[in-house]
Structures are given as C-alpha cells and as structure tokens.
C-alpha cells in the first residue's frame, strides 16, 4: 500500500465503501465529492500502522458492522482497526494533527552504534539545520530550517543487521516536516554511509495537542 499516493488512496477507500454498501454523504455543488478526509496524507513509499479518517455517513450503521464490512472488501494491506461515532463535532482531523512519529530503519552497512549516537547528537545540537526544498509549483528552490520542526530523533534499536531511529516531527498545517526530508538531511550532515535503498519508514502515530502535550489521535473520541 505504501506505493499508493494519497489521492489514489482516497479512490481506494471510496470504492471500498461502495463495495461494502456503506453509504457516505456527498458534498453538494458542481462536482459532488464524498465527504471523507484523512488526518494527514502519507507520502508515497512510507508505510503506516495508524492512519485516521473522518467520514460523513448517509445512514447510521453500528461501528462493529462498518469495521467488518469494510475489512471484507479492502485490499490486502489496509485494515480498519477502530471506528468511533463522532457525537459532537470538534475540529476536523486535519486541523487537529500537530505531530507525527516515524520509525526509520536502515542497514548497518558497517556503521558502529556509538558512531550513530554521536552523529545524532551532533545533528540535534545544531542551532539551524538548513535543507533546500524544491517548490512544486514554481520549481524554484527554497531554503528552510528544519531544526524547530524536530521534536525527537533518537536511536531506539540496533542489531547485527540494522538500526532503528524514532523521529517525532511537526505534522499538519502549523508546521510540517516530511520524515524523508529529515533522514536525507541527517545523511548529508552526518556523512554516514547509509544505504539509500535499505531505508524503510513507518508512520507510528499521529498526535494532537492537549494542554501542550502530545496525545495520540485515537484518544480523541475515546470516552
């Protein structure tokens, strides 16, 4: 599933809803769109173990039944884990998302553990970490400082084969850092020989802020 773009993933869901005969509401107007939105788009190439989606339903169906009907028709690689009825409308999911955490793994390729830890600490001790980003529309290049967007970046696992890093970064409309951009910047700054095609990124969780604390999105509607 990680090779599917956000837009294509939306079609995958729309069609799954139709196959499951779970009717979603459509917007009014010139070209009616189904009312369904993901909390935050997932870049192509990144897997995820926790995605969130908000839908407007046309009819009431018990949560359990929605889960089982959808899971029957979803392609391999996408599973509905939980489903909650939104009783009072709060801010929309995309507006709530503030942070995302990612597990980044790659082959050791001869890199020592202490070496990696040192380079991570060097990386984080910088005041500014400048990356250049190509603008999609104007195709011009823009420089941005990503340091303030990094909340956490640490090694969490190492074995004979690979390392794992946990990265928590700003996500959403109030500041956003693509984990791929982060890891590429780290490779460049640390000068470690990390094999590009061994890098795997998994989104672990999305958070909203409650009293300035990161709270996983799934706590939002839990009573």
């Amino acid at each position, binding site marked *: 599933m990680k090779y599917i773009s956000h837009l294509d993933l939306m079609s995958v869901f729309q*069609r799954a809803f139709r196959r499951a005969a779970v009717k979603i509401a459509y917007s009014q107007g010139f*070209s*009616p769109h189904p009312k369904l939105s993901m909390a935050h788009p997932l870049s192509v190439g990144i897997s995820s173990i926790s995605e969130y989606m908000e839908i407007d339903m046309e009819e009431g169906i018990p949560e359990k039944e929605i889960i089982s009907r959808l899971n029957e028709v979803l392609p391999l690689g996408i599973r509905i884990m939980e489903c909650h009825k939104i009783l009072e409308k709060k801010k929309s999911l995309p507006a709530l998302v503030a942070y995302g955490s990612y597990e980044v793994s790659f082959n050791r390729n001869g890199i020592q553990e202490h070496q990696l830890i040192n380079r991570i600490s060097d990386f984080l001790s910088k005041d500014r970490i400048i990356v250049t980003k190509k603008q999609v529309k104007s195709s011009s290049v823009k420089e941005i400082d990503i340091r303030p967007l990094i909340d956490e970046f640490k090694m969490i696992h190492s074995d004979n084969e690979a390392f794992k890093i946990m990265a928590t970064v700003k996500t959403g409309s109030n500041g956003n850092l693509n984990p791929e951009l982060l890891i590429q910047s780290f490779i460049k700054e640390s000068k470690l020989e990390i094999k590009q095609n061994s890098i795997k990124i998994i989104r672990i969780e999305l958070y909203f802020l409650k009293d300035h604390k990161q709270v996983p999105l799934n706590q939002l509607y839990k009573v």
Partner: protein
Amino acid sequence: MVELDYLEKYLPQVEKPARYIGGEINSIVKKEFQGRFIFAFPDIYEIGMSHLGMQILYHALNHEEGIFCERVFAPAHDMEAIMRKNNIPLFSLETKTPLKEADIIGFTLQYELSYSNVINMLDLSGIPVLKDERRERDPLICAGGPCAYNPEPLSDIIDFFIIGEGESVNIEIMRKYIQWKNSGKTKFEFLELISEIKGVYIPSFYNEQYNLDMTLRNMDKLYACAPDKVTKQIEPDLDAAFYPDKFIVPFIDIVHNRAMVEVLRGCTRGCRFCQAGMIYRPVRERSVEKIKEITDQLIRNTGYEEMSLLSLSTSDHSGIEPLVSSLMKKCKEESISLSLPSLRLDSFSFKVLDEIQSVKKSGLTFAPEAGTQRLRDVINKNITEDDIFFAVENAFKLGWSNIKFYFMIGLPTETYEDLDGIIDIAEKIIHIYYQVRDKKNRRKLSINISTSNFVPKPHTAFQWFPMDDMNVLSEKQKYLSERLKKIKHVSFNYHDVQTSFLEAVLARGDRRIGKTLIKAWENGSKFDGWREFFDFDKWQDAFNETGIDPYFYSNRKRDYKELLPWDHIDAGVSKEFLISENEKAFKEKVTADCRKGCTNCGINQSFNCKVYGDKNV
C-alpha cells in the same frame, strides 16, 4: 519467483511503483492449477489496464478450474533500466513469476506500433525472441487481437495466433495444453493438436513463395493438418458468452478508470476504411436484461464511480432507449456517473447527454471523417452536413462549448477541395455558434479539429489502396494548419506522419518484414506508439540493413488478383464484397446500413447473422 522484498529495494526509485506490485481488488492468485497462462499487454500498465478485452479474457480463464491467468505489462523505461541492470527478469503481477516459467504467454495486438514492445518483453523475460531459437522447455508464445488478422509480420516470433474472439477458444487451448503437458509429447505435437481448433493459425505450418515482382505467389501448407484458410472464432451469442461480474480495480489512476459493459459487438454501418467494422461481424447484441444484470454486479463488486457502455456504435443497440433510461436511474441512486462513448448524436442522445452531464458539460466529439459529402460517400460514412450542423446547433443550445471533430486525411480520391470542406465546416460551426448564443456566453467556445492520417488496413474495402506519400500528407497538414489557425476559437491537431507510415507498413506487411522488426528493436526501438520515444531513423536504418523497401508495403497499389499476405485468414466478410465496396467507393456510391437490408457482405455464409436472415434464407 521474484521476491517482493527484493523488488522493494528498487521500487521507490521508479515512477508509479504500483504498476508492478499487483494485489489489486479482484485480481486473482491461485495456488493450485495445471496450466499457467500469462496475458501480456505490450504497453504500460495504465493503457493495458484500461482495455476491456483484457478484463474479459483474464476472468474467463480464471473462472475455469485448473487454469491460472496472470498479467504482465511493458515496464516503463525507468523500471526496465533497473531490471536490466540487476538481472531481474520480467515477472507476472499476480505471483511475481518470471515469464519464462509460464506455460503459455499470450500477447494482445491492439496496435501495430506495439510490436517492438512484444519483442522487448520477450527479451526482458530471457526468452529467445525467434520461435525457432526457443527450446522445448520455453513457454509457448501466442498472440491475438485485431492486428492478428494480419499475423505474418510477427510470424518469426509467435508460435501460434488466435484469430477472432478469445473468450471460449483460450480455454479450449489451455485444456488441450494441460492434456498435452502430461503426455510427454513435443511442442510440435501440441501445435498439431490445436491446429484443428477454429481460429488457430500456426505460421510454422505454412511456407510462403514469392513472385519475381516481390508479391506473394503462394502460401504452401507444410502439413496436412493445417487448414487452407483459418476462419476466425466468434462468440455466437453474447448473452451466453462469458462476461466478468468483476473487474480488476487498479490502485492508481489509469486511462479509462471505470467499469465497462460491452453492449454490442460489431457494426452494421460499413464504413470502408474501418477494420473493426468488418472483422467484428456479424453484429450481436447483448440483451437489455443481461446488460442490467452485469451493471449491477460490476457496481457491487468494483465500487467504481463510473460506469461506461461500450461498443463500436452504442446508439445502434435496439433497446438503447429503455436501457439508458433505466441505467441513468440506477447510477443516480448509487452516486456514480454513466458515460456513453460512441453515441450517434441524434435527438435521443442529446436528451441523455443533457441529463447525465446536466451540471458539468464535458466535451462532445463528432467524427465526420471527411470534409465533403463526396468524400464521405467514397468512404461510406453515412453522415450528412445537415446531421453535423443539427447536432452542433443542439449542442450549443444545450450549453456545450467544447467540441472536437475527427477527420482523416489521405483518404482515397481526396483532393484539396475536400480539405477546404473541413475548413468550411469549421467556419460554419462558428457561424452557428454566433447565431445560437448571445454575446454574454460566447467566450468559452473551443472547437478542436483533429486529423489522423488514413492507413489502409487488411480486411477492408481499401486494403488494395496505396497510402498517401509522407510528403503529400505533410503538405495537406500544412495546408489545413495555415488556414485553420486563422479561425478564431479553432485549434488544430494532427498525427505524426512518420508514425502513420510505419503503421501502414506493419499493417499490410508480410513475413519478410519480420527481420526488420527484430532489427529495429536491436537498434533500440520500443514504445513506438509514444511520440516521445518514437525514432523513425532507427526504423529507416532497420529497413536499409535488412534490404526491405517499406514503400512496397505502404504506398503501392495492389491488384485485385494479387495474393495478399492475409488472404489465408478468413474474417468472414467475402473478398467479392470488399472488391465491390472498393469499386463503389471510386464511383462515389454509398452502401446502406445493413440493418436496412442485407448488403451481402458474406458473413452469413460462415456465421449466423441475426441482422438480416442467416445462411438458410
């Protein structure tokens, strides 16, 4: 098997990796089977997956116990480079099985310019391209589709061709294959076994002889079991024929991303340039009840947001009005859109189109094909200027402002007067627009005129006709371009002349150009149908290096007496009919739609034609 874990190292580096991963909804993986068929489409995923025939044949085979059908498409350039660099063989989407391990690989030939991709895909699979170089353990390579009606250009490569419609015959062949596989017999014996199946053409069972003037003298049968003429296969009854109740739904956007129901097969109109109009005869309809049943199943099983009715001429279905009314209701309930390409723009169609595009009016398309009534009579395109203007006026009144027109240039007997006719039509349309629309609504008008270059095709009334010289076609394009660009609101597109020329050579080629094909591929030709990849120089070099004169195939007038390279392939329409149509064309005489009375095309001699009587009448 090519491990997905292994592929994962490379997939992030390619554009649209989902082209290569399979696993789509309704794709099928079988663990137990006796015969593996791999359906090969010689173009990229987005094109191949839009093809209705692939969906039908894939599910028809997989519906059978013991038979497993997988898919493969031509990898795009980036993926091919990675595969070649890392020795990854071409693999099937379903189980990532290298093509080399298939029992039978079946290519669909939709377009002559995909031939170089057929060769490239075999090479990427590590399978010898030439059939004589393949060993007993290599898979059998077959091919079908409209271009297989002239199989000879690919006869050095393909073990056997399937002429006609594949729903049932593919299964019959696979059943025979499974029997043969366990018998310990040779490949030759397998070919002998299937040579008796209607529609199967085995090129190695024939040897060709040429005259001194390079024309074909004879196709000698080398074995008694080979039929004198290979008659096409058809599905006699569309209601009884297999039609899938589910389609593979891709993860990524493709050219035609929708569920499709074929409402009828064949066409009664008899346009003289049209190969489809001849080779898909007799005309057969699917019943309204059956179409509705299929539509319901497809909506439920695919979840698609668009449903499309397909055929060569959908308005010709005898139950079109009740059908469309009922489908419009159904689609509205399900919040899905209905699309009806290939509608004739009569008053009923406008009623329908106005309703299904009530809010957002996308473009309308007309295909008058020729600019004057005289030339339309020559090609038997039975549409008058009044028809065109009536439709255009209607379209403008109902709110359309974006209209496309398709014409062909290089048609038999064409003069510059006929080209002026195209310009006339454009001017008159603008005039109508200004009459119909008041000032406020005029800004959005967009008239697009598109010309393609006429390519004479086998099994048509114009199969003897020389194509226009390339420079003549270029002159005609220039002539139109200079004049059309002066007309406000009109844009003009035209097809590349060199591409059409190559299409013409391959379309009416014989066995001798097989070596040119291989040479062109060795020179680096592939994706010839793609403007950005087509390189005419590579082909010219290939013609020179193999001593083939391409003009002999494209620009030579053939005599009725000449033995044509596809004469041993019987599409059911008689040569006498094609000759009489060709004669009538030059006398500017039209032939009516055969629903108004049998025109004696000969199809009812070998097939049951329900349009007007059958062979017993």
